[in-house]
């Protein structure tokens, strides 16, 4: 409990220091308001544009969460297919690796053409961007199951699917967790880039829109909301993963 309070205390101090620094930079350099608004102006903008911001934020957050879910499911299923079937490994693994040479961002305009300006192209973008880290980390984890466990299972006359279910998947969870943490950090990027390329709603759209009208305080307010969400999202994912792999942390 004391540890948690210290952590919270440190976070408040760090945030306050950053805000102070921000204000200080404005005071010293005298940058004009339309380049860098003061923290207070951003707070005011948050209050004044509360409804718009919440509407757009809800869209973006939904895209991020859906992207995370869909990308993770596809990633996990792909890794399981790769580990279960030798022919899948031989045929699909090279394709999988080559496909990563294509920058996912470059696909964004294409996704908009194929899936439209709505939510689906952004969800697809977020899913695509996290698909690789999830698949790669889970597949690695599945592959690196300790031979001693597999030998033991063999001697116990285990079935192939129970080995995957009861030994390989749990053994790969710590590795999958690292992949999911990376995914939680990059999923918001996917959604925002998707919105920049073509959309009529979402925080990314709002930021571009505000930028074009020199509403720099609104832009910062949107950015702030996005940052807060991204941090909370990462935090929740990280905590749940730690809980799910608690055995990995006792020593």
């Amino acid at each position, binding site marked *: 409990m004391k540890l948690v309070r210290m952590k919270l205390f440190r976070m408040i101090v760090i945030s306050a220091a950053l805000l102070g620094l921000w204000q200080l930079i404005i005071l010293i350099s005298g940058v004009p308001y339309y380049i860098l608004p003061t923290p207070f102006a951003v707070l005011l903008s948050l209050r004044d544009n509360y409804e718009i911001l919440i509407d757009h934020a809800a869209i973006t957050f939904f895209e991020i969460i859906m992207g995370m879910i869909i990308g993770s499911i596809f990633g996990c299923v792909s890794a399981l297919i790769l580990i279960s079937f030798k022919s899948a490994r031989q045929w699909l693994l090279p394709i999988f690796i080559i496909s990563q040479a294509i920058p996912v961002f470059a696909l964004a305009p294409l996704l908009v053409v194929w899936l439209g300006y709505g939510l689906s192209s952004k969800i697809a973008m977020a899913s695509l961007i996290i698909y690789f880290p999830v698949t790669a980390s889970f597949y690695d984890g599945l592959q690196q199951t300790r031979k001693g466990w597999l030998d*033991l299972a063999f*001697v116990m006359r285990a079935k192939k699917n129970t080995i995957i279910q*009861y030994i390989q998947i749990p053994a790969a969870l710590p590795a999958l967790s690292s992949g999911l943490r990376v995914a939680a950090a990059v999923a918001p990027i996917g959604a925002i880039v998707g919105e920049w390329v073509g959309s009529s709603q979402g925080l990314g759209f709002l930021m571009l829109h505000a930028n074009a009208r020199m509403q720099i305080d609104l832009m910062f307010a949107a950015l702030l909301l996005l940052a807060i969400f991204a941090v909370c999202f990462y935090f929740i994912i990280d905590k749940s993963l730690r809980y799910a792999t608690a055995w990995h942390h006792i020593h």
Partner: protein
Amino acid sequence: MSIAPTIYIEKLQIKFDEIELFNDLTFTIQSGIWTCLLGQSGVGKSTILRAIAGINDGCEHMGDISFSSHNHHVAYMGQEAYLLPWLNILENVMLGSKLRRETADKQAALKMLHQVGLDDVSSLMPAQLSGGMRQRCALARTLLENQNVILMDEPFSALDAVSRHELQMLTYELLKNKTVLLVTHDPLEALRLGKIIYVLEGRPAKVMPPIEISEAAPRMIGDKIIDHYYPILMNKLVNAERISQ
């Protein structure tokens, strides 16, 4: 329970990356007793044991390993307990039935844990146990598998002296009348537990004529029997044909 089988190893050839570990190896592991297998590191002791267990290590295999009964199933204990860290002790003991999709006999598992002296820890996680306790858990898991052939690959070597001594006694008591093959580095361990002691030498490896001890095991350190056989066994080990690694 059926009678423990004899295991016949006939003309066994094993090649591993062009290295010929065995070429025409023939020997017998007798039914219902403890057989020990000693020899220099790398001579192929574990390889024989794994071949009997049917574990595929990606080596070339020829020759014949046969059992005198129709049941070819074995139980295996390694140097490490290989407990699954995400399952508690009781679940680890019952792992076999889970992997075969059979209903687990919880009462039997608890009884095994009691036999190995682990009554109070069934809900703990493996990481919370000492090395000796983990190996006891592995023993309980082996017992629950209820096989007549037990293959053991240095199961006591990582333990401290006291735990090792205790676990040797316990294991021997609990695995009486089974066909046991114990691979070990420790001549004293072989002399305490084995009825028949084989030494492997050279490459490709051959078995030297075995030492057979008729007096009942487990024998205590300081026993005349052990004092009598220790120099004989050491002499065999010293004179065994060495392999260069």
